[in-house]
């Protein structure tokens, strides 16, 4: 048996299809679990936004909508690149897999770069919560609350992005050494699921952090 065939059907499984389906169930359950993790933060955010609506709008007006929108577009594009990688994997074209994985990672890294630029701007504007926060507006406390959630939620998202890039790097390595084939490439699909999920989270973060203050 070739190495790829062994990987495609590990000893606890009866057929490769069973392994793929089982792994797929596991992966989606993991994502459901991630939904609840971000869900708790969304719940807390919603409760506080409902009780301090104006302050959250004011806080949101301090967002850099330019960078935010560019980042949204970047992340969506990175997802497209990764979908191309998945497509190439199904065709078994290792060269293309590697190319698209690298593109995805580069776009992801640019996203993180822009994100940290934004964080740096918030620090300079004394919007980062805690000892760095300084705001003379009458809503200072509530605005700080907005920024607490902004930093926790986008921070958790950024952590997921960093982990995602790490996973893609691992996949790239396994592609280069030749483990990924047309028969066995589920890891790439799962890397994709994770990355796209992180994308979904960002879509909501964009809607709740960047958009509310735009009309001010």
């Amino acid at each position, binding site marked *: 048996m070739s190495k790829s065939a062994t990987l495609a059907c590990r000893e606890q499984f009866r057929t*490769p*299809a069973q392994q*793929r*389906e089982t792994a*797929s*169930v596991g992966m*989606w*359950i993991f*994502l*459901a*679990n991630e*939904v*609840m993790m971000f*869900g*708790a933060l*969304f*719940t807390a955010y*919603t*409760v506080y936004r*409902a*009780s301090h609506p104006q302050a959250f709008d004011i806080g949101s007006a301090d967002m850099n*909508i330019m960078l935010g*929108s560019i980042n*949204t*577009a970047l992340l*969506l*594009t990175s*997802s*497209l690149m*990764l*979908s*191309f990688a998945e*497509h190439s994997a*199904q065709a078994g074209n290792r060269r293309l897999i590697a190319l698209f994985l690298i593109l995805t990672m580069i776009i992801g890294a640019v996203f993180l770069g822009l994100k940290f630029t934004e964080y740096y701007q918030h620090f300079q504007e004394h919007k980062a919560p805690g000892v760095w926060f300084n705001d003379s507006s009458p809503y200072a406390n509530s605005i700080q609350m907005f920024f607490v959630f902004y930093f926790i939620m986008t921070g958790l998202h950024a952590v997921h992005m960093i982990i995602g890039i790490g996973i893609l790097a691992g996949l790239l390595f396994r592609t280069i050494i030749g483990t990924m084939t047309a*028969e066995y490439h*589920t890891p790439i*699909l799962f890397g*994709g*699921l994770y990355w*796209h*999920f992180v*994308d*979904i989270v960002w*879509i*909501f973060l*964009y*809607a*709740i952090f*960047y*958009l*509310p203050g*735009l*009309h001010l």
Partner: protein
Amino acid sequence: MNEPALSLKKYIFAWLGLLGLTLVTTLIAFVDLGVWSAVIEIGIAAIMASMVAGFLMHAFYETKLIKLIIAAAIIWFLVMITLTLGDYMTRGWLPFPGK
């Protein structure tokens, strides 16, 4: 192999759709529609999320079990947020502090 496979065309159309919706929601956000702003923004985000999940993550083409897992995650999240907000929205219905 019974894994879902989509054509490149579908991926590209989904991507274009997503970029378009991002533009739409950002433009709408410049108009103050009161409470409706938030509703529209979250609504469009939900549509975008289901596009990512449906096409890029192939959820539309997955087995019933996978769809069930996704539904469970969404329902459980809605339960959490609905009942929690239920507390905050009904506080103060009685004219006594803290009720």
